[in-house]
């Protein structure tokens, strides 16, 4: 919204009314499908579409009885946890180097690190595949892990970098003058002070990995499914109510994860 105050004139009032209607329409457009998916997940009907016939939890039950779905869940969770952990470790180190040290080619590395952010995922997907072919390496879980790490790395780097830039170097300098060496200073001073950004970066990376589909389709070994690719595969046959239930679970996880993160960061900040 603009900084200008609502004008008392007629056209002004009309403009504001229009803006309000448009905003509401946009929100409906964005959130209605999500609401529909969640509602239908509790529908007792077999059709997986409106009208709702009754309330039921059976589709969730079916979900957990379906081994291939449970398997996809496990893959997704492990992939999200490991790739975001890797991205966080590498990202924190990269951010530290970029902010606190000066070295040759710093600008280049900075651009290079944010490249996955700008590149279309399809291009990333194909590029990594071709690279692996060049190395004659088969597709595997490791490739998926590598790919997801690369995809989420820029987010961690940017978040931690922003925090480090805002953090005066005099805290670290004070620690050095008091007798702590670089490593001790990092763990005693720097790390606690940038931890909100690290937690945020980790959760962001985990969420990105958890619901990535485009690049994952290129990189996954046939037979391995993550939750999004599993849904995609199931959709090819039919829209079943199980898909609605699975979608509902996905939505809850991807919304809950950042919320928990935000809460933790705030708790953390308050304890100071």
């Amino acid at each position, binding site marked *: 919204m603009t900084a200008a105050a609502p004008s008392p004139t007629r056209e002004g009032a009309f403009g504001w009314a229009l803006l309000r209607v448009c905003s509401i329409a946009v929100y409906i457009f964005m959130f209605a499908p999500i609401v529909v998916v969640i509602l239908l997940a509790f529908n007792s009907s077999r059709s997986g579409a409106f009208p709702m016939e009754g309330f039921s939890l059976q589709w969730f039950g079916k979900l957990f009885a379906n081994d291939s779905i449970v398997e996809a869940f496990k893959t997704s969770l492990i992939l999200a946890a490991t790739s975001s952990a890797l991205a966080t470790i590498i990202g924190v180190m990269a951010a530290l180097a970029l902010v606190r040290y000066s070295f040759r080619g710093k600008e280049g590395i900075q651009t290079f690190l944010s490249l996955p952010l700008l590149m279309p995922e399809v291009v990333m997907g194909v590029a990594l595949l071709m690279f692996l072919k060049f190395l004659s390496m088969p597709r595997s879980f490791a490739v998926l892990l590598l790919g997801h790490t690369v995809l989420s790395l820029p987010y961690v780097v940017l978040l931690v970098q922003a925090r480090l830039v805002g953090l005066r170097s005099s*805290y670290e300098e004070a620690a050095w003058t008091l007798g702590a060496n670089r490593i001790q200073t990092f763990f005693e001073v720097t790390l606690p002070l940038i931890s909100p950004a690290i937690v945020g970066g980790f959760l962001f990376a985990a969420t990105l990995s958890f619901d990535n589909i485009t690049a994952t389709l290129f990189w996954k070994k046939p037979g391995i499914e993550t939750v999004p690719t599993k849904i995609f595969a199931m959709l090819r046959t039919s829209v079943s109510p199980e898909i609605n239930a699975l979608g509902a679970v996905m939505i809850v996880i991807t919304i809950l994860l950042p919320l928990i993160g935000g809460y933790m960061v705030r708790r953390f900040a308050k304890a100071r």
Partner: protein
Amino acid sequence: MSSVELKAVEKHFAGGIIAVDAIDLDVPDGAFVTLLGPSGCGKTTTLRMVAGLEHPTGGEILIKGKRVNETPIHQRNLGMVFQNYALFPHKSIFDNVAFGLKYRGVGKADIAVRVRRALDIVRLPGVEQRFPTQLSGGQQQRIALARALVIEPDVLLLDEPLSALDANLREEMRSEIKAIQRRIGVTAIFVTHDQGEALAMSDLVVVMNKGKIEQRGAPAEVYEHPRSEFVANFLGNANFLPATVVAVAGGGISVALADGSQLAVADAARTVQAGEKVNVVVRAEKIELDGGGLSHASVLKGTISAVDYLGSTARYDVTLAGGEKVTTLATIRDGARRVGDQVNLSIAPEHCRIL
């Protein structure tokens, strides 16, 4: 014995910036030395090189007679107080003050004793369990001082520690820091661009300009005997009068101003010859306005061109007969003078310096 010695220390930054230009400095043991100068003159850079936070591009730094150029910061045993306090926000006051002791292998019980003693020294007992944000600016700066002193540093380094405080608190902390330093006997290097702080606190004032040392000496010496136009200007209100030497007899020099009026100067530090063009420096507060005057003072006539009323004193801009502008600082007795008033300025010879 020197606590800190700088030998031709210089610091060049990328882009041809010469922050510190071949500085020589001896800091005597137990002395309070101030680096004073305008913004960008290289004070902070000099201090940071002593601390090890910046590496000199030339020269040698010695602490207690030992070369430390290659000694990493954390092994130098220096206490540093930063402008923004730099207390660790995620640690309690106790943990902040104890930080340096932990890395010196001090036992737990001993740490508690020494932290308490340090907090007593800065007159803030009992705040151990609080966090830095729960203290006022002045209190935080006291804790920063305690944290730097508790490790019994060889040298205490302070980079404008008072500039973040408000005016009243600044004066209070000024005398407190000085008192603590005197009591403990620790050598201190203090950086400031505030001449009041420098004059009030120091045993030795080092005036810096453009990466070089302009002059060093006891506060009174630097103030009373500025050896360059820069120092005269930077410390207090100085007047510069272009003049021609007319006579030299013994320690007494007589100079003529533009309109021919004569001014007696007693400056043994300079040898001049008749006919030489010189600059005479007189401090504003040394010029007496229409006073009975000392019998040996020169008297110059002028007209007041501007008045700055300051309460108990007033600052007058006076235009002399020859067109020179002079600033004087005078105590107000019975009402301030007005613009346009004719005045007599008495200047004693011993208050004039020749540059």
